[in-house]
């Protein structure tokens, strides 16, 4: 069976859905980062596949940008997370409500 664009897009959608559910359901901040990574990589797959399909390299370039941005985001995010953990000893999302209106 030949792997077509449809397969890639379906894979991308499934990953995106998993990531989205993770974002909604997870309370652990670390897990939230994982879910975000899954979301970003789902889009990366989509970009790369469509880029290959229409023979235009722009999509793959965007994928690289996203990887770079995701890396920096995780770096900053993990840094903040460690600081937060040192201060409170917890990384539970529901505890982070000091901005409550």
């Amino acid at each position, binding site marked *: 069976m030949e792997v077509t664009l449809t397969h890639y897009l379906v894979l991308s959608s499934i990953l995106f859905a998993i990531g*989205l559910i993770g974002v*909604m359901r997870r309370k652990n901040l670390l897990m939230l980062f994982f879910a975000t990574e899954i979301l970003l990589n789902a889009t990366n797959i989509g970009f790369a596949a469509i880029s290959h399909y229409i023979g235009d390299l722009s999509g793959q370039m965007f994928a690289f940008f996203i990887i770079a941005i995701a890396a920096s985001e995780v770096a900053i995010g993990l840094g903040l997370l460690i600081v937060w953990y040192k201060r409170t000893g917890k990384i539970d999302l*529901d505890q982070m409500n000091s*901005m409550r*209106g």
Partner: protein
Amino acid sequence: MELYLYIALFAPLVGSLFSALFTATPKASITGYIASGLLFTSFVSSAILLNYVMGGHTVHVEMMTWMATGDLYIPFGFVVDQVSVVMMMVVTIVSTVVHVYSIGYMDHDKGFNRFFAWLSAFVFSMMVLVMSDNFAGLFIGWEGVGLCSWGLIGFWYHKESATWAANEAFIMNRIADLGMLIGIFLIYWNVGSLQYDVVFAEVGNLQPVIITWIGIFLFIGAMGKSAQFPLHTWLADAMEGPTPVSALIHAATMVTAGVYLVVRANPIYDLIPNVGIFIASLGAFVALFAASMALVNRDMKRIIAYSTLSQLGYMFVAAGLGAYWVALFHLMAHAFFKALLFLGAGNVMHAMHDELDPFKMGGLRKVMKGTFVMMTLASVALAGIYPFAGFFSKDLILEVGFVEHHYVIYTVLLLTAGLTAFYSFRLVALIFHGEERYKLFGIHPHEAYKFMLVAMSPLLVLAIIAGSFKMTYYQLVINLLPSTQYHIHSATTFWIMTIGTQLFVILAILFAYKKYSNWNSVPDGTSKMEKSFGYKLLWNQYYIPKIYDEVFSKPYLELSKIAWKQIDLKIVDATVDAIANAIYKTGENTRDIQNGNLSSMLRWMVVGLVVLMTLAVAFNVGYNVFGA
């Protein structure tokens, strides 16, 4: 000549605006001088115009377009013709005198500047009223004088009674003005123009029933302004205002605007003699009705106000019977002597520290010689003794009634003439003769300022000699008004009538003097006369204010309470509250979105994303299916 017209019209406005600049500052005598000076300018211009009009010309200007849409065209146009110039002279003479007099009268009043702003504004409105060349302009002046009258009756607004009287006058006039407005609409509807010359040329072609309605509705307006029964109660209450206001507005000018309207609209009223008869009958009734109330009243100003009402009745009799020039002549003569009477009453009020009950005065002729002479002569003129102004104008009205074979009206007017003489001299006798009853109340009366008496003197002269202008005046106004002469054919009848009337009036005067000039006590409601039914009826003004209170004011108050508690609170307020509550509840219920929990925020973000994507897809599908 146009220049003089504009000066005559706008000088009072300039005076009013100038005084208005100082309304918030303490008394500045300059406002009084400037306003009076400008009024005098206006008077001089009017006199020049009178001279010009007597040469057989008229001045007609169109200052600018006011309304022009489709077929409707109403300009700000002014006309100085034989009728309006007479009114202009009356208005400017009396108001110049009253302005100068007020400088003295309002000397110690905190609202000095405000007073002149209102008073000059009134004169301007009155000039617009008499000079306009169309019914719309007349109506603007009509409302303007109403407004200024409101401001001046309620001039001492800290007094509850003054504000009440001001509102009463304003509301009663509104009722009547609605009638007048309907009349004007009817004219426009049927003629297509409001210009006097067009309307009067076309009115003969209309159906009689329409002319009748126009006449009736215009007269309703006149009834309100001239305080004819049943809209008369405001005039006596309007005496709450300062006395110069009563002299100018409620005796000489504004209240005669109704008569002026009927005189001005004479081509309309000529076509509907039945309405004319009604006007004359109402006038005769009011003449007697008001004079009877003046017989027993114990308020100096109210007595004079009822007398004004009674004289307005005379004018309407003349106007209703088609003797327009007679009505206008009596208007003019009456303006002079009645304003004089009021200003004299103002002097007495000042001397007596605002005491109004003539029974508490007495013997004032010793300290107030000038005022005494003036008020006596004004009363003589009012009573109609030869050769004073009242004789020529009032006897003429009696003759009109006689010549036109309305003997009932004639008899009523004759009787009223006797009553007029009686109550006028009852007032004079009580104030100036007899014992000095004011000493019981510890008052030290003093004569008014010299210049106030000097200011009043032109009115005195006119009250004495105005009758001699009769033929000049007649030659002037017959250019515009029907020139019927009212001569009693038989010389014997004429002399019997004239001398009889004179004797009757003189007897009434003597009776008043005999009864009141030696009065020595203040009545306290215990005497036999004061307990009689007739006295109580007259004292309570035929219970008409009470009836109005019971029939109109109180049910209206109840209705207003129902509207407030049932309609306003339960329907209008409830609707507004419901809308506010709905929004409030929505906010209350949606504040969970902002609970600060990151997890739920993320969930809402996902919801938003889904909604946006759904919309994007839906629009895309819709565009592909239905779109271009």
